[in-house]
């Protein structure tokens, strides 16, 4: 039988197919839109969703650049961004929390250096720290705040608790009191893992201090007794069963998740960042618990060097992809204009990052005031560990925190897992 492959027509056909295939491969790679600027943010609920869209539209009008805005829920955002990172093609403007995740993107040459941005005088320099890597700035902030306990004053009063706890012993006592009164003490999105890591991190911050934490991250050795004890205290707390029913698979932001449980007044407190009150309203589809919502810092732990004025915190910022057009700096400055910052702070119920806070937030509401007060008393801050550390270690801490709370891991297992992850990263 003749082999048809050697006939000219067959060769042409095969060649055409190869070209088509290569063409398809080349096109398939760029998932880009036709817009000049792609903008990814995580405020996928109104009013903030509309506010970012409006700001983008206004700037688009002014500059003649087209902007495509994508509002993506936070968990999906992390997933999609990490896929984009692997593909080496980040959006022109995208949400970031700074720290190790941003550093890894910077190291891969995927992020634009914006140290020369002409409008940085509009921002409080403290808010730029998380986004500064080796002396260069890679993102602008739009929100800055702290993690602490948002609690329901009515439910505390119902259980007969008059003062907020200042030590861990008082805290666990209050948890028991709430339980005895038939109130779910704590809302927790256990399925998402990261809400749990706040507890372990805070306990570690209190028990080894921020210096101890920094030293451990430097050496990749979390074996110290403080870290094991932090795990033990968290395991002890979990053993009291203080969380809402089904917390093991609950998410943070879904309609039956942590924030919604708080927003509906079904649990007494949650450990969450400055965005907590807003998400409570969004996720529960209610007006939240209004003036009943108040804030207290994570308590001090007896015997540890950490104080209650050291906060776990951070904020949201926007970084620009390396391939972004130069006009992106103009867009960033547009977002930082004081009247625009004011809109973001107002609609998003965020705490301000402005150099001149009064110009942006003349009359903070009680939630914003709580965050401002906490920031004012803060003696030091630590960025969320799942952002501060490289992704493999941050994820390990999140994962191990979940294992600890579910009783699947001992505090010693936890420390061993984190050490192993650091060793693999070296």
């Amino acid at each position, binding site marked *: 039988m003749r082999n048809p*492959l050697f006939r000219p027509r067959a060769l042409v056909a095969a060649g055409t197919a190869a070209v088509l295939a290569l063409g398809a491969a080349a096109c398939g790679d760029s998932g880009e839109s036709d817009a000049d600027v792609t903008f990814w943010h995580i405020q996928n609920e109104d009013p903030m969703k509309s506010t970012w869209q409006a700001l983008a539209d206004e700037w688009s009008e002014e500059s003649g650049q087209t902007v495509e805005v994508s509002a993506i829920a936070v968990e999906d955002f992390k997933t999609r961004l990490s896929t984009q990172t692997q593909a080496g093609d980040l959006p022109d403007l995208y949400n970031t929390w700074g720290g190790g995740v941003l550093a890894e993107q910077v190291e891969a040459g995927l992020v634009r250096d914006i140290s020369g941005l002409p409008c940085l005088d509009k921002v409080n320099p403290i808010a730029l720290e998380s986004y500064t890597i080796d002396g260069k700035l890679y993102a602008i902030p739009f929100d800055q705040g702290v993690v602490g306990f948002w609690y329901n004053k009515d439910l505390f009063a119902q259980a007969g608790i008059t003062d907020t706890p200042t030590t861990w012993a008082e805290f666990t006592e209050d948890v028991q009191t709430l339980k005895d009164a038939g109130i779910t003490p704590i809302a927790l999105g256990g399925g998402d893992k990261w809400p749990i890591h706040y507890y372990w991190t805070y306990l570690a911050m209190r028990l080894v201090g921020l210096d101890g934490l920094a030293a451990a991250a430097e050496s990749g050795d979390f074996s110290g007794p403080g870290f094991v004890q932090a795990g033990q205290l968290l395991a002890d707390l979990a053993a009291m069963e203080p969380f809402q029913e*089904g917390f093991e698979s609950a998410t943070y932001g879904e309609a039956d998740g942590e924030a919604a449980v708080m927003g509906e007044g079904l649990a007494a407190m949650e450990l969450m960042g400055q965005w907590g009150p807003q998400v409570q309203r969004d996720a529960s589809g209610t007006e939240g618990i209004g003036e009943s919502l108040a804030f207290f810092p994570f308590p001090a732990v007896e015997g540890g060097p950490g104080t209650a004025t050291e906060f776990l915190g951070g904020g949201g910022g926007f970084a620009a992809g390396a391939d972004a057009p130069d006009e992106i700096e103009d867009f960033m400055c547009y977002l930082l204009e004081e009247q625009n910052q004011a809109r973001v702070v107002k609609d998003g119920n965020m705490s301000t990052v402005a150099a001149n806070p009064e110009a942006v937030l003349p009359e903070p509401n009680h939630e914003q005031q709580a965050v401002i007060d906490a920031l004012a008393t803060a003696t030091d801050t630590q960025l969320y560990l799942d952002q501060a550390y490289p992704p493999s270690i941050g994820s390990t801490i999140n994962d191990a925190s979940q294992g600890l709370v579910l009783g699947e891991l001992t505090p010693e297992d936890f420390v061993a897992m984190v050490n192993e992850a650091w060793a693999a990263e070296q």
Partner: protein
Amino acid sequence: MAAFISPALILFVLFVLVPVLFAAYTAFFRWNGLGGFPTDFVGLENFQTMLQDKVFLADLWRILLITILSIAVQLPMAFGLAMLLHQNFPGRTAFRLLFFVPYILTEAVTAVLFRLIFSPRRGFADAVLAGFGIDGIGWLSDKNIVIFVIFGILTWKFFGFHMILYLAGRQSIPEELYEAAKVDGATGKQLFRHITLPLMGPTLRITVFLSVIGTVQLFDLVYVLTKGGPFHASETLAITMYEQGFVRNQIGYASALSIAMFLLSLVFALIYQRYVLGRDLQGALTSSDGGRS
């Protein structure tokens, strides 16, 4: 002939063979996926890590569990329904359609749907139980039952697909065989045992095959439903691979996992083809006459 195959062949090489080989290559490196090609060669370390990884080993166990449950529960149920729906009765087309509908839904939509049904506070499932005065069950949050709940959802979603295959298989059996056997005095039991079952053999064997391969590659439904939680209790091999690769940026290790998954599917497919599907697939890759027929 080759001219017609070549476009497909080129696409296959570019989009299947090259990625597979690249994954096999990166599996020998420690690599976070960023910045050009991997450079940190670690030999078999990723594979050693994998064999000691409790999550990986538990993934294998769960694959086995779901496979056994599928063959023992899901497929017989689909088979029984197919036999029932082959009978002539009013409204049988409507029933066929109804049972097939879940298969049409995408896995992600199915997962979202069941997340709502199994929601701990006011989900439909708990509400029904409450009607009987029974306390809520941690459908997705109890590590001991979550895998069975997932199996239940998989059954709901896929039994219709298998049922349609069985129905088609049953309908292709010529009625003359039954008529002839009846003339010879065969009972209903004998008809089933000696005509239906043997002639449906090829269909049965292929559905077992599809079911096993589907189980090995299970991802979307479980990921949306539980993300593999609580604490890996419902994790699948594909989820472990995804988490390692795209959440932890351990592309090297994730590649090793993907190779394991590929080999698992491949070895199973080859063995199954050779020894079980052999008589159905005369002329395929592994047949004894080298595919000459």
